């Protein structure tokens, strides 16, 4: 019994007929060989978000990013001219990793005037040019101009920094993102600089964890204990329905309706939520973000809860109606492991009360993420056993269906191109 109207075809899934309604296989999440194909067809070929411009506040600010799925380490840096650039993190002399701190396989960040290799002291400026070779006269016909850092395609949209490892990017960034995503332009991402950052290693395929955060069918069950018993019972009874799903190109969107906790009976909320006036949906007291761009709450849900934009392949922007947002990144490290990053962004608090409400929202976020992460490892083990190979998806899981299909489509498109020498 639908609480929200479905498309005329009768379901969200049938509204996108290419998706089908049959059972699906998760072999794409257990096969080492499939992972290798994903690396080539997707992670070495598409735009990947590696951070935000606020992480590079001034010229010389840099961070490194380990992207195992593309077999790459990149250094992203703001040059003297204010431009953000990305380079392969490799010294041109003997191939040493150029920028690292303490542990060469771990990411690092900071501010510098130039990059200097620890091995033999070669130096590169912030624009990647080689500007110093130790004992240059000992080399043979060395043209320093030809030995700058190897650039990686890099572009910025709405303050989000993307890189692309293809020899030539097949689409410009904004064309790749498409109007559903670029209509978010104007959202004050740049003002929301109070950030809580989290990271963890997860023993599950990256797509399976994306699946967990692109459907809310699991929420009333898995997260039941997060809420007072009376609320949980009601939520479980009702089940979950999202008012709006949308698929555009490789990207996806789900909007949910809001819950006005502050209007609820006190038996339905936890004491700490009342005290801090905050919780899973964020601070209860409204913040003014100005007028929202048209991409936000595109179906005009009322009350509106959140929009979760799944930007292909591994990036999620989640906007809450309460004036804050999350990003998720899923960085594959093997067919059954990945690094998950979650970032929580708010407007800088103007007083202690606001700051405490943010703390409550961030702590609650972590409690939920921990439950999801642990469940995922159990999922990976279950499907890796291989005894069951067909799984059902309901209409509330339409986005999971789309992700797995989209991945398969990219691989098919890539592999259908006649074999040419590829990097």
């Amino acid at each position, binding site marked *: 019994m639908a609480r929200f109207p479905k498309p005329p075809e009768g379901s969200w899934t049938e509204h996108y007929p290419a998706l089908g309604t049959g059972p699906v296989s998760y072999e794409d999440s257990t096969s080492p060989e499939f992972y290798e194909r994903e690396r080539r067809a997707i992670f070495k070929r598409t735009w990947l978000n590696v951070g935000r411009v606020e992480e590079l506040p001034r010229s010389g600010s840099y961070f490194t990013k380990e992207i195992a799925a593309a077999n790459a380490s990149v250094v992203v840096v703001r040059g003297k001219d204010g431009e953000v650039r990305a380079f392969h993190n490799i010294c041109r002399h003997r191939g040493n990793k150029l920028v690292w701190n303490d542990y060469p396989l771990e990411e690092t960040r900071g501010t510098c005037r130039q990059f200097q290799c620890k091995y033999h002291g070669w130096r590169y400026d912030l624009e990647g040019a080689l500007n110093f070779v130790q004992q240059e006269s000992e080399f043979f016909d060395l043209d320093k101009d030809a030995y700058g850092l190897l650039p990686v395609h890099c572009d910025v949209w709405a303050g989000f920094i993307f890189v692309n490892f293809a020899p030539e990017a097949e689409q410009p960034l904004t064309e790749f993102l498409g109007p559903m995503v670029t209509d978010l332009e104007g959202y004050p991402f740049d003002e929301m600089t*109070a*950030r*809580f*950052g*989290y*990271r*963890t*290693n*997860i*023993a599950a395929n990256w797509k399976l964890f994306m699946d967990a955060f692109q459907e809310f069918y699991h929420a009333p069950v898995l997260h039941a*204990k*997060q*809420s007072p018993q009376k609320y949980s019972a009601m939520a479980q009874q009702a089940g979950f329905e999202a008012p709006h799903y949308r698929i555009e190109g490789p990207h996806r969107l789900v909007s949910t309706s809001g819950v006005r906790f502050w209007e609820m009976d006190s038996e339905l909320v*936890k*004491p*700490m939520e009342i*005290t*801090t006036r905050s919780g899973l949906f964020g601070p209860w007291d409204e913040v003014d973000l100005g007028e929202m761009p048209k991409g936000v709450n595109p179906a005009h849900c009322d009350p509106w809860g959140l929009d979760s934009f799944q930007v292909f392949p591994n990036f999620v922007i989640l906007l809450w109606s309460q004036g804050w947002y999350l990003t998720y990144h899923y960085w594959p490290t093997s067919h059954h492991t990945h690094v*998950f990053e*979650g970032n929580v962004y*708010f407007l*800088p*608090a*103007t*007083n*202690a*009360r*606001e*700051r*405490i409400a*943010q*703390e*409550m929202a*961030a*702590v*609650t976020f*972590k*409690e939920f*993420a*921990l*439950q999801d*992460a*642990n*469940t995922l*490892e159990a999922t990976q083990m279950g499907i890796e056993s291989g005894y069951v190979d067909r799984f059902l998806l309901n209409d509330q899981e339409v986005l999971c269906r789309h992700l797995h299909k989209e991945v398969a489509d990219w691989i098919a498109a890539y592999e259908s191109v006649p074999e040419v020498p590829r990097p």
Partner: protein
Amino acid sequence: MTMLPTEFADLEPFAPKWCLPSEPGRYAMRLSSSMDEMYEFYEAIHPRAAAAISHLERFDLYGLPEDATNLLHLLYSMIMVSFPVEAWGQPRVPDTGSASFDCFTEPAP
């Protein structure tokens, strides 16, 4: 030597353990504390939270005196222990045996 504003001297016994400036510190303290310890802390601070927030609200958030900063950190710890106390009945999130989620950046204060 006191750590908290004098109005909150009653919370002073909890300050050395729970005035922790970082999320990793607070989370680790939660995991290494007994439920009794957390109940005791929660029972003491929760009734005082509204007054504490009102007290802190009078200051510029980015120029808090040291004792106020300590009080703010104590409130963060209150939020941290509220989950074991209000929801889980145990220090760790249930069914998260192998999961971790490490905080590496957070706003200051």
